[in-house]
């Protein structure tokens, strides 16, 4: 039941009537009249509450759009990763195309498929997507834009298997950049980690020849398996061995097998005719020969100049000696023999002769 005493309170009733009246006035106000009142309230008393509401709505929007935003971020990351992989692949293909355009003929392009055997820590063989029907034969060289990759071990009609230079059975006849030093390339027995995982050895280098670190090693073409001038790697350091008459060098290969995705297989005809200056061996050799010729020419010029100088000195000494002898003969009243050459006398005009006008 309602409290009659409180209900009958005139103050309460008056307040209620006032509030209701004010509310009705607010309801019937026109928009242009109510907006200033509401705006004043929003800017003053209700401002903190409006700020709280705005912050809460932002939180809600952030929460609601979080999944969509995360998906967008994931998509962008995935696209970025794909674009990077595509860019790497594109670069490799461009290099292969460049190598193919330089070779012009006598090669078979192939994709390299790696084995997935878990026990195989290092890549020693590659399965290539080109076989004997495309002209691939056993022992065909497998090359990449960076240099030598390996050689074909088995050639099936549609695919072939190549052993890489990391394979224990791999051998290649090699030479230094100037073509003056030869050796045999073997896979390095001790396997390192990281960038040193794939290393080679150049054995059989004569003791009298010392190769500097950084010297580029190419295939020599001896033996007929690999054509001359394919880049193998660069000299890192000389290895200590028990050999007395030969040196062994550690070689860093130019090609990293784990990054090989596309290769070119050279055909037997191309091997027999050579690859020319595809990997820059000839230019390096030419530059080396030119520098040697320049040094030799310089030496001969210096030798000639020294010989001429020596001859001039000897002539001068001889003249002085003759002049001293002649002077002594004249002082003794003896006749001085005429040492002038007949041709020089002829060329000299007689003192009594008169030049005709």
């Amino acid at each position, binding site marked *: 039941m*309602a409290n009659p005493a409180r209900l009958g*309170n005139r103050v309460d009733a008056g307040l209620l009537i006032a509030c209701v009246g*004010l509310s009705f006035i*607010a309801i019937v106000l026109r928009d242009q009249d109510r907006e200033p009142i509401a705006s004043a309230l929003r800017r003053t008393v209700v401002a903190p509450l409006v700020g709280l509401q705005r912050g809460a709505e932002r939180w*809600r929007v952030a929460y609601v759009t979080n999944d969509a935003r995360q998906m967008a971020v994931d998509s962008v990351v995935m696209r970025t990763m794909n674009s990077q992989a595509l860019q790497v692949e594109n670069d490799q293909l461009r290099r292969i195309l460049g190598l193919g355009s330089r070779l012009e003929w006598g090669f078979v392009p192939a994709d390299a498929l790696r084995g997935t055997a878990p026990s195989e820590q290092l890549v020693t063989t590659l399965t290539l997507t080109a076989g004997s029907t495309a002209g691939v034969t056993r022992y065909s060289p497998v090359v990449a834009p960076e240099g030598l990759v390996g050689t074909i071990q088995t050639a099936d009609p549609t695919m072939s298997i190549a052993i890489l230079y990391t394979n224990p059975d791999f051998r290649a006849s090699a030479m230094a950049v100037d073509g003056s030093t030869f050796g045999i390339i073997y896979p390095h027995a001790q396997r390192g980690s990281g960038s040193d995982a794939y290393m080679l050895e150049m054995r059989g280098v004569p003791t009298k020849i010392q190769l500097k670190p950084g010297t580029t090693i190419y295939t020599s073409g001896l033996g007929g398996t690999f054509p001359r001038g394919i880049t193998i790697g660069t000299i890192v350091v000389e290895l200590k061995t028990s050999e007395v008459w030969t040196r062994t060098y550690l070689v860093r290969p130019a090609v990293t097998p784990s990054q090989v995705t596309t290769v070119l297989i050279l055909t037997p005809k191309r091997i027999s005719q050579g690859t020319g200056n595809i990997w820059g061996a000839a230019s390096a050799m030419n530059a080396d020969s030119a520098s040697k010729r320049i040094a030799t020419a310089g030496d001969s010029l210096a030798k000639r100049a020294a010989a001429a100088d020596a001859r001039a000195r000897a002539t001068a000494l001889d003249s002085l000696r003759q002049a001293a002898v002649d002077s002594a003969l004249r002082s003794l009243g003896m006749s001085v023999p005429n040492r002038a050459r007949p041709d020089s006398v002829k060329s000299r005009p007689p003192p009594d002769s008169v030049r005709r006008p």
Partner: protein
Amino acid sequence: MTWNTAVRTIVACAILIVLHYTLRPLLAWRASIDFLVIALLIGSVRMRPGAAAVYGFMLGFVADSVDVSGFGAAALAMSLVGFSASWLKAVFFADNLVLNGFFLFIAKWVFDVLFLILGRNAHGTELMVQMFVWSPIAAAVTAVAGVVVLTILRPLMETRTA
């Protein structure tokens, strides 16, 4: 009402008003909890009816200033609800939580009906659906939330009996 109770009531109402402008937009339910109505009832039962009407008018005016679509409607509805709550507190605000929840439900529904009619925001079928579908659901949700709030605040606040 002692000063201690008054301060507690003011703090509780302030928390509820803040919740109305933080938790409600965060939840953004179709039938959302009306913390202002809960704050109005908690405060009204501790005031005289006239003061409760003024309190309701102020709360409604604040709500109207933020949502100007029915300017004055919330003030009028809350004035009436606050006055009625204060007048009827002896009847409904016993220690029974179910009764308190029912009163909250009725208060919220009445407020929504008054707001919809006075604010003229909806017409025809939409008004009917709003009044008899969404408003009861919102009233029920508000009643549940109010019961939870009262349960939490019961140790701190004591209801003045008539």
